[in-house]
């Protein structure tokens, strides 16, 4: 992950949720580089920096040493819960917000329990690392739904009252609006197609799973939506204060999942799962959704054939920039979604565009091309599409990708008046 500097600390976490690691977030003193604090995401409360100040909103998150007791014995030591995504900082309350990754292994039968504190959001005091609250989006995660996605901190009206909220489009397909002071879920609405859960119970805060879609060892469960890569993976959305909309680049995929017993062997993947991924209902694989958080519904959607694996960028000129995996860099109207401009680059785009004013006073938009990652490994790592479980099944979803792009890696900078 890219480190974040906030409140005089350099924040950095670990990755490797598929390898049986134990997730943590560390804060280094920005001046000296010394370790200020380190918060684990599994294990005893003192490791997780849970103390007197910890006030989770829901009863399911209250109790002593849940990071041990919500796991089978010793399993928390290799239970994942990594921090490889985005951290948001609220200077007013001196709080950071970040999500934790999936529990390991993927085969959920090997880890009965809620698997605290994986697949959820922490609010921490940035100076001490002390946890303020926690909300678990996927207790006992079934589908590798890391919860590391971005959080957008807004002050907006909810049910007629101004609230300090934290908005996060989750991997499990729900757009959560949380009270960022307490961790209460104010609303959770699906922004993509979901059939593996029936919604979020706002009273208990728990996801309501669909029994038939629960993976079973030794048996393939078909047509689970969203996939392990989620309704939206790591690629961050954008908020425009001008339109009041959140622009969510996400994917529309479903999967077959088969789980089997995973053995923990140091240095090897700790998964116990095989999957096959394919396009969801409608046949398109990528979506750019403009979400109206106040009205709790999409304003407009743009469908993309290939999975949308780049970040979105909203500008003051009411444009939304994003890139596609076949190498188109696009700008759409922020209010209508109409395509305003596009340019072809040498390889697929899976990065986040940025806009800036150059030293010469001109405005530029920059993006890095170069397809890869989970979605693009077929091209970048030359995987073999004859195996439709390759790259944990993602290869199956993008087997047309080699015909549409090639691997690359260049920075493209476009001048706005050029």
């Amino acid at each position: 992950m890219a480190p974040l500097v906030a409140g005089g600390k350099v924040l950095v976490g670990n990755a490797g949720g598929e390898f049986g690691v134990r997730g943590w977030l560390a804060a280094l003193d920005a001046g000296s580089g010394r370790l200020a604090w380190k918060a684990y995401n599994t294990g005893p409360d003192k490791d997780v920096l849970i103390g007197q100040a910890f006030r989770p909103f829901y009863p399911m998150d209250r109790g002593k040493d849940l990071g041990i007791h919500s796991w089978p014995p010793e399993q928390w030591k290799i239970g994942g819960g990594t921090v490889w995504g985005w951290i948001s900082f609220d200077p007013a309350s001196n709080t950071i917000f970040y999500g934790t990754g999936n529990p390991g292994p993927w085969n959920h039968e090997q880890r009965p329990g809620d698997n605290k504190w994986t697949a959820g959001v922490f609010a921490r005091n940035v100076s001490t690392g002390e946890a303020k609250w926690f909300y678990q989006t996927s207790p006992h995660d079934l589908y590798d739904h890391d919860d590391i996605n971005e959080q957008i901190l807004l002050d907006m009206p909810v049910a007629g009252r101004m609230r300090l909220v934290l908005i996060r489009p989750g991997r499990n397909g729900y757009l959560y609006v949380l009270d960022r002071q307490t961790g209460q879920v104010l609303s959770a609405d699906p922004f993509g197609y979901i059939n593996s859960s029936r919604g979020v119970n706002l009273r208990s805060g728990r996801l309501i799973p669909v029994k038939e879609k629960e993976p079973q060892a030794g048996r393939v469960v078909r047509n689970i939506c969203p996939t392990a890569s989620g309704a939206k993976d790591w690629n961050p959305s954008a908020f425009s204060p001008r339109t009041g909309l959140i622009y969510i680049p996400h994917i529309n995929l479903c999967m077959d999942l088969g789980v089997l017993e995973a053995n923990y062997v140091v240095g090897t993947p700790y998964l116990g799962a095989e999957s096959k991924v394919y396009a969801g209902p409608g046949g398109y694989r990528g979506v750019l959704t403009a979400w109206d958080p106040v009205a709790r519904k999409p304003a407009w959607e743009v469908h993309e054939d290939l999975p949308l694996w780049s970040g979105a960028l909203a500008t003051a000129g009411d444009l939304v920039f994003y890139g596609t995996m076949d190498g188109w860099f696009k700008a759409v109207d922020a209010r209508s979604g109409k395509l305003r401009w596009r340019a072809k680059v040498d390889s697929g785009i899976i990065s986040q565009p940025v806009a800036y004013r150059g030293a010469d006073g001109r405005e530029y938009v920059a993006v890095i091309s170069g397809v890869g990652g989970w979605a693009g490994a077929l091209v970048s790592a030359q995987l073999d599409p004859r195996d439709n479980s390759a790259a944990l099944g993602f290869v199956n979803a993008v087997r047309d990708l080699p015909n549409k792009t090639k691997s690359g890696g260049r920075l493209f900078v476009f001048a706005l008046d050029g």
Partner: protein
Amino acid sequence: MNVLSGKELPRDGEMLQGEALHARLDKTWRRDPGLWGWVTTTDHKDIAHRYIVTAFTFLVLGGLLSLVMRLQLATPESGLISPDRYDQIFTMHGTTMMFLFAVPVMEAMAVFLVPLMIGSRNIAFPRLNAFSYWMYLAGGILLWVAFILNIGPDAGWFSYPPLSGPQFSPGKRIDIWAQMVTFTEVAALAVSVETVATILKQRAPGMTLARMPLFVWVSLVVSLMVIFSMPAVALASSFLIADRLVGTQFFNPAEHGDALLWQHMFWFFGHPEVYIIFLPGVGFVSEITATFTRRPVFGYPLLVLAVVAIGLLAFGLWVHHMFATGLPRLGYAFYTAASMAVAIPSGIQIFCWIATIWDGRPRWETPLLYVVAFIITFVIGGLTGVMLASVPLDLELHDTYFVVAHFHYVLIGGAVFPLLGAITYWFPKFTGRLMSERLGKTSFWFVFLGFQLTFAPMHWAGILGMPRRVYTYPTGLGLEQVNLLATIGAFVLATGFALFLVNSLMSMRRGTVAGANPWDASGLEWATSSPPPPYNFPHIPVVSSRHPLWDHRDHLPVMTGLRVDDRELLLTTVMEARPDLREPSPLPSSWPLWAAITSTILFISSIFTPWAVLYGSVPVAITLIAWFWPKGPVTPEPVIQ
């Protein structure tokens, strides 16, 4: 008006009798001379001989394998054969005995006896009969050549997946087993169809269903059972080959296949199979008992009903082989009840035979000794069967030597003892000579006592917890003595079989020449010479009771009017056996052999590539078309003026 002489007369009748009739019929029905005639023959007796000799060859081979196993198990922790070889050996033993010996030999007896018992000139569909033998032979050779090449199957005679599936048994061992099953299924189905058609349509005039000999009844029931049960296993083995060759998912639970599906399909065949093997024994025993006690068998209608009841019940209790897989309570209760219900018709049969012996004037000759041995052994096996039908005991004894002891008591006791009696009894019909009574009795005692010595100790071994299909056992578990006893018994038993074979080989050349009816038996098969001529009967007999030869000792009524210059059969009505039609019977042909060769190529190649099914079907189609090609009108009948 012309008077036709004996040479031109087209039909048998008063004017065509004795030597002249024999010469004409012999010319029409005799097979061609030499090897060509041997290959192309459609005479049911020739093919049955072949079947029986081949089946006994497989019995010897399978028996030798069991001796090797007993040698390995004679002492604990023995290293005589490797576990890999042992797996192949017990699989080969079971497979050979069930698929290559027991079913074929029982069907061969039917092929030989049924047309004679019902007074017909040949079996129905005689070319299919020839074809079935070649298929059976090819399947047996496939299996044994593979075994000699060290690629014999090694997953047990029932080859449960996942062990037999592509993950745990890659290679060709299991494919060879599965395709051998296909071969023998084709052969068995063909014979069954012939037998049913023969019994229902070719009975001698007057032989109503209620007058059929018991063995014919049994053959009818068994053939119908084969027709209903065997397709299940042929389908299952094809599924297995598809799983193993082209990666289908029939038996893969991960992809929503079902490993238990195999067990259901296999035992839906496998359990009736046990009765398919046992019921002919019922037929043999009934015939032998009647002849050697010199009275009609007691309770004929009861025996017939019992046979039919067993045939029906056999299809309702296959799940008792699967008690250890976990079933719903109702399933346990139902299949336990069904399994125990079989004891009722079996018990009725036993009492009928005891009553027959009790009431008759028994002549204690070898065949009747085998009957007594059968009753003793089968009752013991039946009682352990009732024990195993109860779920708690079954869960305790499942896959132990107790089960091994049980099914050998039922199968050897219920089928092999009657078979040995039957061979002795009908030996004069096969060869024209009697078997030596002295050697026969000696071999009987070796077989009977050897059998008990071999398998009785296995009950104890099983109760002590000795598992089946494991190549050795540790010292100090108290298994040494029972195993040593069993091994000694196995060699005694083998000596008995060897004496039986020596007896039959010697008697074939030097035995007392038997007349047409050496035992003074009552059935139609004894109404013709020993061995019967190619046309079986000079005139088709007419039947008016269940015991035609006892009712008409001197002069069996006959009917005349069948052609002598062409192969012609008399068809009668199904229920009352009233004369119905005259039907031509096919001439010898080499096409069944060619069809069998092309089918063999197809079946064996399909182990290696799925395309064989497509390309291999072309030569099969060609041979079948040639086989069925219309031959034009039969020789026109000379007009009698």
